[in-house]
């Protein structure tokens, strides 16, 4: 159980990370992106698997493992329609395709979006605390959101029934695109973050 003070401090660095990711996304997409929701909280496993909505809702996910002093897992998730609008914005010429299918090029566009967002969030957050992290290249998945998010939390679930969740919802209102970012730091990383906040 984290103290309220530590959670508030984590909120502050999470906000910096979210702002940095928001700026990077705006530049990458060439459109204004806003932060619709941002927070850090201790949540139950059941709550985390429903972050995207009902567990059987389909989602496009870019999942990245974070190594270094602040390790863990991070994911960027879109509704399918939002992911389609995003790749069109990024220059995809494929407008009429089987709804479930993204081409290799489109997947690459989505993975690059994941890479930019996750890296800019994590690097900004950890650099403020003089910590280092290395987000690995995101991997694409299209599946049931509950299944994706449950796999995200497996590692942390070994330690507790509740875990700290960084969650940000980005919106590009002009293009009607919403992007959910979720980061689950490993328990060891939380110690490292707390030490960084003290120093």
């Amino acid at each position, binding site marked *: 159980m984290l103290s309220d003070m530590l959670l508030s401090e984590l909120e502050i660095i999470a906000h910096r990370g979210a702002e940095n990711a928001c700026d990077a996304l705006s530049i990458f997409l060439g459109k204004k992106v806003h932060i619709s929701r941002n927070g850090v909280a201790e949540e139950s496993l059941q709550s985390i698997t429903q972050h995207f909505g009902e*567990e059987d809702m389909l989602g496009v996910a870019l999942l990245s493992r974070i190594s270094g002093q602040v390790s863990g897992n991070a994911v960027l998730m879109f509704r399918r329609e939002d992911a389609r609008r995003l790749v069109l914005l990024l220059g995809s010429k494929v407008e009429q395709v089987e709804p479930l299918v993204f081409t290799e090029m489109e997947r690459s566009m989505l993975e690059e979006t994941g890479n930019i967002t996750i890296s800019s969030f994590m690097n900004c957050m950890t650099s403020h605390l003089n910590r280092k992290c290395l987000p690995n290249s995101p991997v694409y998945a299209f599946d*049931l959101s509950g299944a*994706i998010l449950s796999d995200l939390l497996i590692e942390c679930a070994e330690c507790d029934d509740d875990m700290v969740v960084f969650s940000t919802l980005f919106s590009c209102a002009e293009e009607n695109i919403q992007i959910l970012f979720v980061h689950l730091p490993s328990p060891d990383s939380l110690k490292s973050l707390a030490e960084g906040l003290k120093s």
Partner: protein
Amino acid sequence: MSEINGRVIKVLIGQVALTRSPNKLETVLGSCVGLVLYDEVEKIAGMAHIVLPESAQHEASNLPGKYADCAVACLLSALQEHGAQRKRLKAKFAGGACMFANTLDKKSSDIGSCNVLAVTNYLGHYAIPIIASDVGGSAGRKVVFNPATKEYSIQDFMNRTQII
């Protein structure tokens, strides 16, 4: 743990739930395992949404279905408390996928197969026959068990459904 009548009961991660016909039990699985034990005479069934294989070496949990060993024991005792007979209990299960093999570390990416192995072993330990299973692969599953028909319906993200 909950026993609710008259609807589809969603079994969230780490939970155990029981129900009788005509109700159904439903969950969504990645590397987790959805274990169902049922008594076809009483038409009662229990589902556990298992996250990890063993409770030993881990922090104690308030979630009865989180670990395979605790989940099997919990299902057995709860079903018997509600009228199921141990000798009539049978098992079906699904899940244990490896959705992000290239991303997560090896330990995490092996969790699905470890969960399946642990469930199989604990069912063997309690001499509960395994009637059917659908495990592995790289995709999530939405599963629904119907105690009235003993059908375990498994649906993937493409809406392909199979019944075991």
